[in-house]
């Protein structure tokens, strides 16, 4: 089962939702759609499901043109970010409904519903109504209904957004395990790069209705093709500093010079944008070629086991991602070290011209 989108456009009332997207999803693959709110993730999924039809372009499933085929005649399933279940049916009947409609034998239905319920830890609640369950359990019910039929494509539209972070962690681990043994195409929309990374597989980065990059998730993360891709696919976003290369030196803004690293010597003179991942900046020097920067703290956001430090000086704002808990006062001075050998370089148009050598270079 493969899914091919061919030069898809979708316009609604003069507004472009999807702009010339071509994408080929392989059988058995797990694909994350990554992008901010309104980047076109939901629109794209609705096109894949057949809930909407593209304005231009074709959709192929298994070599068959299904562009105009209605959702009822495609074998897909979908999980939404709201917890969507049939409120008047029990959890059991909710999960069983796609099978009943497909006229599966009663005994077979029973076996499969119980198997799925067991897997999703909702077996004790089969007789209850969805609204009597907690949010997490409601979403498990919705997932059960999506998984119980052997759909060719399963679409997840930010299914964990409305759950709290501990539940999200658990769901991610479980989802990965569930899909490891399936041969369907899974598509998972999310705004969080960390979620895409945790789930593995492939990632497609979307921005303003366009496909920015598609590839293996680690590949997209480590080797962004454009500055947009790098920005979308990092949380906190990658730090971008504009600079000018001349000879063996780089100048940031006005009169802030640094000698170029060995790797970067090959760059022709000109203006560039330098990208530093938040997690590569540290509080202690890691290597001899680190750039030392004196900054002032805006805010230290602490997430239990990690610290996101927002800092600035008169020229730039930076975000630093530190492991462990570090407490800082607002406006406290801090010295940071930026490793030059981990820097990405983009040209003025945003195309990548240098990838750190430990990631294989360009």
């Amino acid at each position, binding site marked *: 089962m493969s899914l091919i989108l061919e030069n898809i456009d979708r316009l609604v009332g003069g507004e472009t939702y999807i702009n010339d997207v071509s994408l080929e999803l392989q059988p058995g693959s797990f694909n994350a759609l990554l992008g901010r709110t309104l980047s076109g993730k939901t629109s794209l999924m609705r096109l894949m499901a057949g809930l909407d039809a593209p304005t231009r372009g074709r959709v192929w499933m298994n070599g068959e043109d299904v562009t105009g085929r209605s959702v009822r005649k495609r074998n897909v399933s979908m999980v939404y970010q709201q917890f969507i279940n049939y409120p008047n049916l029990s959890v059991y009947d909710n999960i069983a409904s796609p099978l009943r409609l497909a006229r599966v034998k009663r005994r077979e239905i029973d076996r499969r519903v119980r198997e799925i319920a067991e897997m999703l830890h909702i077996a004790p609640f089969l007789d209850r109504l969805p609204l009597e369950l*907690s949010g997490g359990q409601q979403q498990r019910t919705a997932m059960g209904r999506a998984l119980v039929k052997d759909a060719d494509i399963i679409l997840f539209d930010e299914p964990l957004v409305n759950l*709290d*972070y*501990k539940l999200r*962690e658990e769901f991610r*681990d479980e989802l*990965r395990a569930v899909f490891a043994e399936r041969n369907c195409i899974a598509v998972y929309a999310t*705004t969080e*790069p*960390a979620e895409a*990374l*945790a789930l*593995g597989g492939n990632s497609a980065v979307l921005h303003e209705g366009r496909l920015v990059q598609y590839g293996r*998730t*680690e590949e997209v*993360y*480590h080797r962004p093709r454009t500055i947009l891709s790098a920005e979308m696919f*990092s949380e906190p976003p990658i730090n971008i500093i504009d600079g000018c290369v001349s000879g063996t030196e780089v100048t940031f803004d006005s009169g802030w010079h640094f000698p170029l690293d060995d790797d970067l010597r090959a760059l022709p003179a000109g203006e560039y944008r330098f990208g530093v*991942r938040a*997690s*590569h900046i540290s509080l202690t020097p890691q290597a001899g070629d680190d750039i030392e920067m004196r900054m002032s703290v*805006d*805010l*230290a*956001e*602490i*997430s*239990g*086991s*990690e610290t*996101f430090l*927002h800092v600035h000086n008169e020229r730039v704002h930076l975000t630093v*991602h530190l*492991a*462990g*808990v570090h*407490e800082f006062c*607002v406006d406290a001075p801090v010295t940071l070290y930026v490793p030059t050998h981990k820097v990405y370089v983009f040209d003025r148009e945003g195309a990548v011209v240098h990838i750190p050598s430990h990631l294989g270079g360009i």
Partner: protein
Amino acid sequence: MAEIALKSLAHSYLDAPGSPQDYAIREMDHVWHQGGAYALLGPSGCGKSTLLNIISGLLEPTRGDVLFDGERVNALPPEARNIAQVFQFPVIYDTMTVYDNLAFPLRNVKTPAARVHERVMEVAEVLELTPQLKRKAKNLTADEKQKVSMGRGLVRDDVSAILFDEPLTVIDPQLKWKLRRKLKEIHQRFEITMVYVTHDQLEASTFADKIAVMYEGQVVQFGTPRELFETPNHTFVGYFIGSPGMNFLEITLRDDRVRVGDSALEVEEGMRRAIEAAPSANVKLGIRPEFIEVHEAPVAGGIEASVEHIQDLGTYAIVDLRLGDTSLKARVEEDQSPPTGRAYLRFPAARLGLYVDEYRVEIDHDESP
């Protein structure tokens, strides 16, 4: 300005509570000091909203006392307590302008107009609402509305504390950190006691100097974010704080050796004695994924585990490990290549916690194992 103390406080929504399960808040003592920035953190249903409502005066506790600066206020309604509260969804007076919204609490107590103007302008300045003052509050964005509802608390100079009930729920993710910074700034400038209720560890740790973690109607730990991370007092705190949470290993003592399943684990002498002395069979060792040393080859004192899965999170990886029947997670940094197949783990003594009946037991560290 006030210190808020809770004395042997308990609350039940039932008329005749019997067992401890009937209580939304189990008996507790707690003090919020004047001028502190506090958070009340816990999963949904842990009783944190009940506690908040008791402090603000919307609920009267079943037992115990709520003391403001030593004065018992149990029966006082919210308006008599001089408490301000910011709700989950912005509560603003739609038909009024931003200015009138901010002036409202002062006008209600017949503050002279000049004084009202002075306070409103000052607070608007701090909240960066000055350009919006003439607008109808209805047309503001969610974050501006939330600032207005915060502002209504700040204009009063008699406010003893501001309570926040998940105030950033409806705020756009990109704007959240700016509002968090604003909150911190406001706290430093006005030196008002602030209590921030949330289920999100990021919100709590970012805002608060000290966090009270609630679990099943009780505060299980009250400490700084660093304390919660490094020395969680209760297994729930270990699990709840950090992503992923703390690993817990059920251990037994056999042939004088500490064992996890069948594997023997080398521990400090002090730890071994403490385990021996444990009054219960429910004994666990806790260690954070960040502190587990993962080696590809056998090392001295290392314990062998199988590698189940590796999650590459970009600049670090989370390795799922299996040690007998126990699953563990360990964090491996980018510079280190993650192991495949088998791994050898070491648990640094200083990072290993002992939990008996779910609570942490302090042990004396000896020189080195």
